């Protein structure tokens, strides 16, 4: 009986080990980037992305796609996040499934970090070339030094084809055309293999003879000096001379082969041009704002003054990349991701046009499951309970004006 129990115990232990070991082989692809986990105030009060366009949602390996649009650097930037004086326009993808062939802000190529000004709006474009097949969530992203990654909206893009077909051709200033995907790979392998072989040879010279116990006995009994022979010293000198010779030879040969090389390029880029936004003719005052936890809805009382010469209507509230639209006023035609688009998410107590010169106070409700799904409701747990976002107004001809709102938010739990 005891034998059977022991066998069962042993087998169980083996099965447990196998289960734990096999778990290592379960490595599903990361599908998204924790965008919902980022603190709500970071997404609401830093960079506001809008007018985004993903040029396609399916692309073959080696084909290009672009993400373009605008971002507004919020003037009420939170004190707890460093200002975007050193920022990098990045792209949120799970590793190099695309290569970034270009990125521009205000028409300027931005391969390096840039300085952004609070309150300005910038146009941007990122050019990607598909590399690895799969379904990838492609996000806009701005990294801010001292603030971390500020992630924008993401859209699923399917890459088809085979990664083995991917090429990344370039022509250097010395006139050589190469494929950066595999360039100089043989050279890397060759030098590493050569040097590791030399290191292994040195090791082998010593480990082929008795090592630890006899040598320890010899050292302990005061015969340490007998352990290194004159031949050992000659071999050692040979290794040292060979090493120095090979380093010098390879250095000279390399400089001959690559006479023109330059240091790595680095540095901050300043003076990035913002968009000249048209003077807004709408002023908005937030009288109060509450977030109703049970209803997953934010209610704002807004006093809007139209200083323009044609009637305007509020059509969209955009915060943390979630767009709440009033379907009576506007609709999305850009193919914006469904999960962050509330096509009928914006309701108003009165959405009739506000006449030129008129001031009107209205109740606006932005409601959608996205408040919960995208964890924006967590704003009520922030130490600085404020919200912010973009309001878009439309006149009778469809012209659009953008204004910012930034105000305290009071949670309502009943």
């Amino acid at each position, binding site marked *: 009986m005891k034998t059977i129990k022991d066998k069962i115990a042993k087998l169980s232990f083996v099965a447990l080990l196998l289960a734990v070991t096999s778990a290592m082989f379960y490595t599903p692809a990361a599908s998204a*980037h924790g965008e919902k986990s980022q603190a709500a105030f970071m997404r609401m009060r830093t960079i506001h992305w809008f007018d985004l366009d993903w040029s396609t949602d399916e692309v073959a390996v080696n084909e290009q796609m672009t993400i373009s649009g605008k971002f507004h650097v919020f003037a009420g930037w939170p004190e707890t996040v460093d200002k975007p004086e050193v920022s*990098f326009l*990045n792209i949120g993808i799970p*590793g*190099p*499934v695309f*290569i*970034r062939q270009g990125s521009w802000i205000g028409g300027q*190529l931005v*391969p*390096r970090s840039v300085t952004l000004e609070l309150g300005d709006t910038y146009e941007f474009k990122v050019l990607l070339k598909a590399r*690895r097949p799969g379904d990838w969530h492609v996000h806009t*992203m701005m*990294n801010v*030094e001292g603030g971390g990654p500020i992630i924008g909206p993401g859209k699923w893009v399917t890459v088809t084809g085979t990664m083995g077909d991917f090429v990344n051709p370039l022509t*250097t*200033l010395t006139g050589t055309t190469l494929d*950066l995907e*595999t*360039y*100089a*790979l043989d*050279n890397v392998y060759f*030098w*590493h293999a050569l*040097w*590791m072989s*030399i*290191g*292994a040879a*040195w*090791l082998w010279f*010593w*480990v082929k003879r*008795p*090592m*630890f*116990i006899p040598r320890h006995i*010899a*050292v302990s009994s005061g015969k340490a000096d007998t352990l*290194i022979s004159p031949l050992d*010293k000659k071999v*050692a*000198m040979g*290794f*040292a001379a060979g090493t*120095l010779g*090979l*380093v010098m030879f*390879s*250095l000279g*040969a390399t*400089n001959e082969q690559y006479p023109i*090389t*330059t*240091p*790595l*390029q*680095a540095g*901050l880029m300043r003076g990035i041009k913002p968009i000249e936004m048209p003077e807004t003719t709408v002023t908005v005052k937030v009288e109060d704002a509450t977030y109703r936890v049970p209803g997953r809805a934010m209610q704002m009382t807004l006093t809007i003054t139209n200083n323009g010469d044609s009637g305007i209507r509020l059509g969209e509230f955009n915060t943390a990349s979630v767009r709440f639209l009033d379907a009576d006023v506007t609709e999305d035609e850009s193919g914006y991701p469904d999960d962050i688009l509330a096509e009928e998410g914006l309701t108003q107590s009165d959405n009739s046009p506000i006449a030129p010169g008129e001031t009107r106070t209205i109740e606006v409700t932005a409601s959608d499951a996205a408040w919960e799904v995208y964890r924006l409701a967590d704003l009520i747990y922030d130490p600085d309970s404020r919200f912010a976002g973009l309001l878009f107004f439309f006149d009778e001809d469809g012209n659009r004006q953008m204004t910012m709102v930034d105000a305290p938010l009071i949670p309502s739990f009943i």
Partner: protein
Amino acid sequence: MSASQSAVRSRAEAVQVSRTLDWMILFTVFTVILGGYHIHYMLTGGDWDFWTDWKDRRLWVTVAPIVSITFPAAVQACLWFRYRLPFGAVVCVLALMIGEWINRYLNFWGWTYFPVNFCFPSNLIPGAIILDVVLMLSSSFVLTAVVGGMAWGLIFYPGNWPIIAPLHVPVEYNGMMFTLADLQGYHYVRTGTPEYIRMVEKGTLRSFGKDVAPVSAFFSAFVCIIIYFLWHFFGRWFSKTDFIDGEGL
């Protein structure tokens, strides 16, 4: 067999057991160093060793030798002090580089698809051989620290230049000049590694014009001497045998 009898019955058997123990100890030492040194180097050298667009002529040259001379100094002290074995530095660096290659190939390339020509490790073998040879010939830790430590820092850049030089060829791209290494960093997107954390070409060595690497290497070499001293004491301490006074028990 009583407790007073030997476990081996002949000299041949004793030699066989001794060699078996040699291989077991070597294997254990190798894998322990592979893990410990690898973690240490990844935490301290990190991105400078990961990416070609971090391998610059100032900070990579300075940081990588300083943080990598640690384990070789300690292991050299142990192996020389206890066994008169002069391969402490090479065994460390071989273990490190094998570990790094496993990591770069299986993880960086196999898992996340960064090309190997973008994420290969630095070559530390030339410095390790010089360090071992200096210790063996001088049998002095002071000389090894001063001469070997300095050589470790000085030989790092020329020992790596044949590997990275092809990636420092300039290219014009959308109206700006890059090296191919810069373009690798730009093309192969690292979502969690924005450009501004790249610590390259920073510092105040402008008066040395383009010849910055030798100045950085000399500075690194001087610091390597100090770090060698410090870590060789760790090695000595770690390999010391202390006996407890029986009366105190």
